[in-house]
């Protein structure tokens, strides 16, 4: 008898997650269930106001779910675990203006027991990976918005997490920079093997980047549909976006969000 191979457990398992806003008591998230496999790129899209940031913060452990649970690598998430890093949309407010770019990227390493050399190498590698090698001694506010977001991403990468949560990370930059950053995220996934969970309101972006897309409803939000994206890798801004399947998937999602 041939044994069917056992599928490896998902890296991130969100089961029946519910979240009520503590101040007003309204239900932001009714029940969200999703999984993310190791090495995957998963996006979450939904209409504005459907609690996407709250969802990411709860998955990350910054907030406590009102019901349901989040499991990372088999462990229950009750506080931000070291294998998971969240990158905020507002990079200006999350970076530290009194530190240089290099020191900002080195900040998460203070907890880790590494030698000074190892820390410096980690910082240099992370900055090189995002293309900011020559800006190490600048201050974040001296850089453009796109570059600041890259610093935030470098900081996350230097921490060597297993999964990266991205909260509409490219919403505050212009279209050209956004395309660059999208490709950067794909390259980082390939180079470091980091699993990606991206929240966005940009449907094109979600389809372009992801292996799977979860579509959310209006609040109190639930998962409306899980859509697989079988587009070929590696993705290319021109080729992929003009693929007929790209348009079909994109329209399907657009319809789903609009309909709800």
């Amino acid at each position, binding site marked *: 008898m041939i044994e069917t191979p056992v599928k490896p457990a998902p890296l991130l398992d969100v089961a029946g997650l519910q979240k009520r806003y503590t101040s007003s008591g309204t239900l932001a998230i009714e029940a969200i269930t999703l999984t993310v496999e190791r090495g995957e790129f998963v996006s979450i899209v939904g209409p504005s106001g459907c609690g996407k940031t709250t969802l990411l*913060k709860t998955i990350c452990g*910054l907030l406590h779910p009102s019901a349901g649970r989040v499991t990372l690598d088999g462990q229950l998430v009750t*506080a931000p675990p070291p294998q998971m890093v*969240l990158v905020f949309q507002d990079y200006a407010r*999350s970076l*530290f*203006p*009194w530190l240089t770019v290099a020191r900002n990227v080195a900040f998460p390493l203070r907890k880790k027991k590494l030698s000074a050399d190892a820390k410096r190498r980690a910082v240099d590698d992370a900055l090189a990976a995002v293309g900011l090698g020559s800006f190490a001694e600048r*201050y974040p*506010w001296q850089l453009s918005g796109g570059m600041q977001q890259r610093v935030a991403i470098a900081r996350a990468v230097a921490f060597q997490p297993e999964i990266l949560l991205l909260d509409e990370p490219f919403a505050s930059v212009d279209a050209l920079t956004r395309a660059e950053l999208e490709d950067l995220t794909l390259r980082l996934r390939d180079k470091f093997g980091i699993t990606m969970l991206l929240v966005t309101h940009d449907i094109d972006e979600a389809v372009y980047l992801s292996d799977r897309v979860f579509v959310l409803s209006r609040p109190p939000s639930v998962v409306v549909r899980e859509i697989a994206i079988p587009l070929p890798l590696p993705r290319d801004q021109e080729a992929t976006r003009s693929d007929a399947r790209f348009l079909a998937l994109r329209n399907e999602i657009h319809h789903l969000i609009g309909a709800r």
Partner: protein
Amino acid sequence: MRRRLGTVTVVVLLAVWEISARLMHSVYFPPASTVAVTFAHEWFSPLFAEQAVPSLFRMFAGYLIAAVLGIAIGVLIGAYRPLFRTLDPLLQFVRAIPPTAIIPVGILLVGIGDAMKVFVIAFGAFWPILINAADGARGVPRERLDTARIFGIGRPATLVTVIFPSALPGIFAGLRIGLSLAFIMIVVSEMIGSTNGLGYYILQAQRTFAIPEMYGGIVLLAILGFALNAGFVLVERRVLAWHHGEAARAT
């Protein structure tokens, strides 16, 4: 050319002072030249070390105490919301009391002397430093605090490495107000219960009708006040260079 206009105006005003005072022949209004001569005579002498330097020492002692306590307690209060809510009403009341009104209490508790002055200066400067430090600590962007949690930075380390630097602009605002208050408090405390110091000197000069000396003392106070302020601005510009840079970019 434009910058010269300021100096020219000052020179013109000094000339007006000189001429009108000589014309008026009033004891209360000595000519600028007389005041200048008296100033040089009085203050470029051991008198400076006897009267002015102790004043400054007391002021800095009180200011330092107020700064250390005010910043430490202020940042703590600002960082812990429930703590802030509990202490705020009492703080708002105490800070509304004119600090100079505490001087009689100080005299009763500690007598007239250096201890009283340092106490009164510290009391006066403490409240604006505390309140502004707390405000600074409260205004730390949520994302920064969350970032520290995400990277597993514990509460105490977050206080020192994230909250305190974020609060520095607020802290310096409080320190600046505190410095000018300390300066005021030293002068007043020396006018009330004292036998030496600049405040005493000026008041005594008025009482004994040593009028040019009185003017000279006021001029010295003006110079000292200006120097303190300028010094503070220099320090602030250095320490908060990153903040000025960030703010400039935001406009």
